[in-house]
């Protein structure tokens, strides 16, 4: 009875977005289920069925997500007047989930026999709209084996608390910086020359907004699933604590990273390396070549997955550059004669790596947020001081900063185009506190997951002790107080902004 009930709940949830979208999801499920079966049964045409499945899924995404761009590409033939469709909720997520399923079938995994089970696996309501991207042998299996016995007050309480944390991240933390980021990017898109401080405030605000928004949604999804007795995979693990860009991708949108790694990067890397070894002039660099090619294609697709605009593609390529830089740096460090002990790095080295990674990622997010390349360049220009730095008159006088310092333009007392209605000081304090939350506090996984083996720094351990979660989360008066405050601050009056990743 549980599977039909959960499926009904999922259908109800999805129907809430649109009947048409539900029909699109249903057709996608039916097609993928049949193709999955064919892949499993057929020996001769296994590969063809897989290609057909991938083609159909990519077609679904293209039809609804990239119509504008495709019609734009063919505009030289004539004006086709192709109407763009509105984006079905979670189409990128459920299409990738199903493509993963088809790949697994191709690799010989056991197929899902019942359509009802498969439908629930794809449309499971906590994850269908914004992930995490799930796998049949993990979540699908859990859903099939779910019994009433698995419902218990411990799971419900834990799930509810994680859901509260996720909501708190979204409603209180993400939306509080969203206004700041929106103001700055609105100015940038309107070609206003903002100064360096404003640009950095906007860029950092957006980095924080995106993290709290998306990780908040993931926590809500995982918390909801826990309440039902299902363990969804964790999607975030303090990405801004990453010490390099590869580490960042191990912590950010983990389910997508894993998917791309398993189904795109690894096959390309392995395939190229294998082939290149047999070609004399490529054999020496076959490993590096496979890595570079795999990274390039993977990150290009990653950018494209988020949207078919030049900015998203360039965002993916920006990360390619960062990953390449990281690879060459590691190769440089590994040269004979150069001493490097990556395991025993000083905390100063760790923090500077962390900061460098955060700054790089923040630079890349500019492409993600701006509507065109020109706006992104304007924003970067402002961030590196091309439009002048902001500094208060009192500060300048006190510290004797030379006015009209060659190369720098200083604005005094107030900005010529005051973007912010709040005081700069209040905004800076707000951002600083949020950065402390991001860099110093344990994340939801470290707090709530008793089964997860999470490596914790000494500082996180101390914090964990304070919050009585050093041996895993347990209900306590401290947590009753924290969760009560969260609950009270959550039921907001104003409209809550839509989750950012609903757009992908």
């Amino acid at each position, binding site marked *: 009875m549980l599977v039909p009930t959960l499926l009904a709940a999922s259908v109800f949830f999805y129907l809430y977005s649109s009947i048409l979208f539900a029909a699109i999801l249903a057709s996608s499920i039916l097609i993928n289920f049949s193709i999955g079966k064919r892949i499993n049964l057929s020996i001769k045409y296994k590969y063809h069925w897989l290609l057909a499945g991938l083609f159909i899924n990519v077609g679904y995404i293209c039809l609804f997500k990239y119509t504008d761009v495709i019609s734009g590409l063919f505009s030289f033939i004539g004006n086709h007047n192709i109407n763009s469709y509105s984006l079905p909720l979670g189409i990128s997520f459920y299409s990738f989930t199903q493509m993963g399923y088809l790949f697994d079938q191709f690799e010989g995994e056991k197929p899902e026999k019942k359509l009802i089970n498969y439908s629930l696996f794809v449309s499971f309501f906590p994850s269908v709209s914004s992930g995490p991207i799930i796998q049949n042998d993990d979540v699908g299996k859990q859903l099939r084996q779910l019994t009433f016995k698995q419902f218990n007050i411990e799971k419900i309480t834990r799930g509810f608390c994680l859901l509260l944390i996720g909501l708190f991240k979204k409603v209180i933390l993400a939306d509080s910086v969203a206004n700041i980021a929106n103001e700055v990017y609105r100015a940038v898109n309107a070609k206003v020359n903002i100064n360096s401080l404003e640009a950095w405030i906007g860029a950092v605000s957006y980095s924080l907004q995106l993290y709290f928004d998306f990780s908040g949604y993931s926590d809500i999804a995982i918390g909801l699933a826990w309440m039902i007795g299902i363990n969804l995979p964790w999607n975030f693990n303090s990405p801004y604590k990453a010490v390099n860009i590869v580490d960042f991708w191990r912590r950010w949108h983990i389910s997508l990273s894993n998917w791309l790694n398993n189904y795109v990067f690894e096959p390309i890397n392995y395939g190229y390396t294998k082939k290149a070894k047999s070609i004399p002039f490529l054999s020496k660099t076959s490993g590096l070549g496979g890595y570079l090619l795999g990274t390039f294609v993977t990150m290009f697709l990653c950018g494209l997955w988020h949207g078919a605009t030049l900015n998203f593609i360039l965002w993916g390529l920006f990360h390619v550059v960062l990953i390449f830089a990281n690879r060459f740096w590691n190769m440089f460090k590994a040269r004979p004669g150069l001493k490097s002990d990556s395991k025993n790095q000083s905390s100063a080295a760790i923090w500077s790596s962390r900061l460098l990674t955060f700054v790089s990622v923040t630079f890349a997010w500019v492409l993600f947020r701006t509507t065109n390349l020109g706006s992104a360049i304007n924003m970067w220009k402002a961030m590196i001081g091309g439009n002048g730095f902001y500094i208060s008159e009192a500060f300048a006088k006190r510290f004797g900063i030379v006015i009209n310092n060659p190369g720098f333009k200083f604005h005094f007392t107030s900005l010529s185009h005051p973007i912010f209605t709040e005081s700069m000081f209040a905004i800076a304090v707000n951002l600083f506190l949020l950065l402390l939350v991001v860099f110093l506090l344990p994340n939801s996984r470290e707090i709530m997951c008793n089964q997860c083996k999470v490596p914790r720094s000494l500082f996180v351990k101390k914090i964990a002790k304070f919050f009585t979660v050093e041996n895993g989360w347990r209900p*306590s008066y401290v947590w009753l107080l924290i969760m009560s405050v969260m609950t*009270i601050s959550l039921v907001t009056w104003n409209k809550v902004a839509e989750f950012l990743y609903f757009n992908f």
Partner: protein
Amino acid sequence: MKYKAFLIGLAFNFLLAIFACYLLDPYGFYRKIEIKRLNQQKEGVRNVIRYVKAIEVGLRKPQTILMGSSRVHDGINPQNSVLQKYAPVYNYGIDMLRINEAKYYLKHAIINGNIKRVIFGLDFFMFNSLEKFNPAFDSTLVGRKLNFIDMLKPCLPSKYVVADIYNTINISRTQPERMEFLANGYRPGSSVFYHLQDYKKLHYYTNWIFLSNDKQATPYYGRYVQNEQTFKCFEDFLDICRRNNIECILFITPAHALLDGEGIHLTGLWDKMEDFKRNVTKIACEKNAVIWDFSGYNYVTTESLKNPMKYYWDSSHYKESIGNLMMEQMMMPQLNNSAYFGTRLTEKNIEQHLKEIRTDREKYLKSNQVDVTWINQLYNRIKENKGIPKEQTENIFAK
């Protein structure tokens, strides 16, 4: 601690917080307990005035509504003795209301109330087509039947409610005489302009806001475009009244002559202002609505700038005594008291009326040279883009 006790504790704390919100009532919806120095000043209303008005008009179920901008909101008290026979009266005045919005708020009041009469204060700036809707206008709320959740939402604890409760208690404690947001929708000018000590500076500031052409700011006279669309909205407004058998009494509000006379003249909008009066009179007469004009250069609007002033808080907002006078003039014209001012407009007398205003202006220019020079200097400064002088914005209110 056990899991069950934890969940019960969480639910209990949540309900406790709802109860506290209900009792302290920072938005003034419930008004069950009102204690001086604790919650008499409903500070939460300040930032969400449009929301509060839309909910309150549903809760209070008035028969008569007073509509208009902040001039009506702050200047006309529904407790006025003349209005008592039309009770219950609710002041539905909304700051910076535009004619386009007014239509929707009227529909909203009809859907959620029992409206028999509308007294609507018209302002020249309402017909500026550069801003059709105030950014705070909520199209998902206004114009539909209110439900239980709409009523409950503001008392649900949230970060806004927590901040508004704190502000309510804080202002109630430090300014115990202040009661700015009353249950009948009225916002007494004495509480809005609490501890006003320099009337002249406040006049300066208001005129600056209205005459400035700052593109970032709300458009008033400094940036003004009038088109047929705005008058169409006005027609729609009157049609809604007619369809619903609602008596409609219109009046053009009496802002100070320095603003709605000289300010309009300086910004080159005099002809547009006259067209505005001609058009609204024509439309009102066609739709069988009564229309009065209290603006122009009469003994109220030409009050000289001094400290304190008898009739005005600033150049835009008249005091309650003027609101009372207007209500008496419109609702009991048979009294025909010489102290009254205002003219009932018809298609026949509109041109004569406009001519009289032009003549009154000539007289005003001769007899009030100090004030006229003052507004000319202010406008010259705006044209020179020098920004508002800092000293004009300091110490307007006593600390």
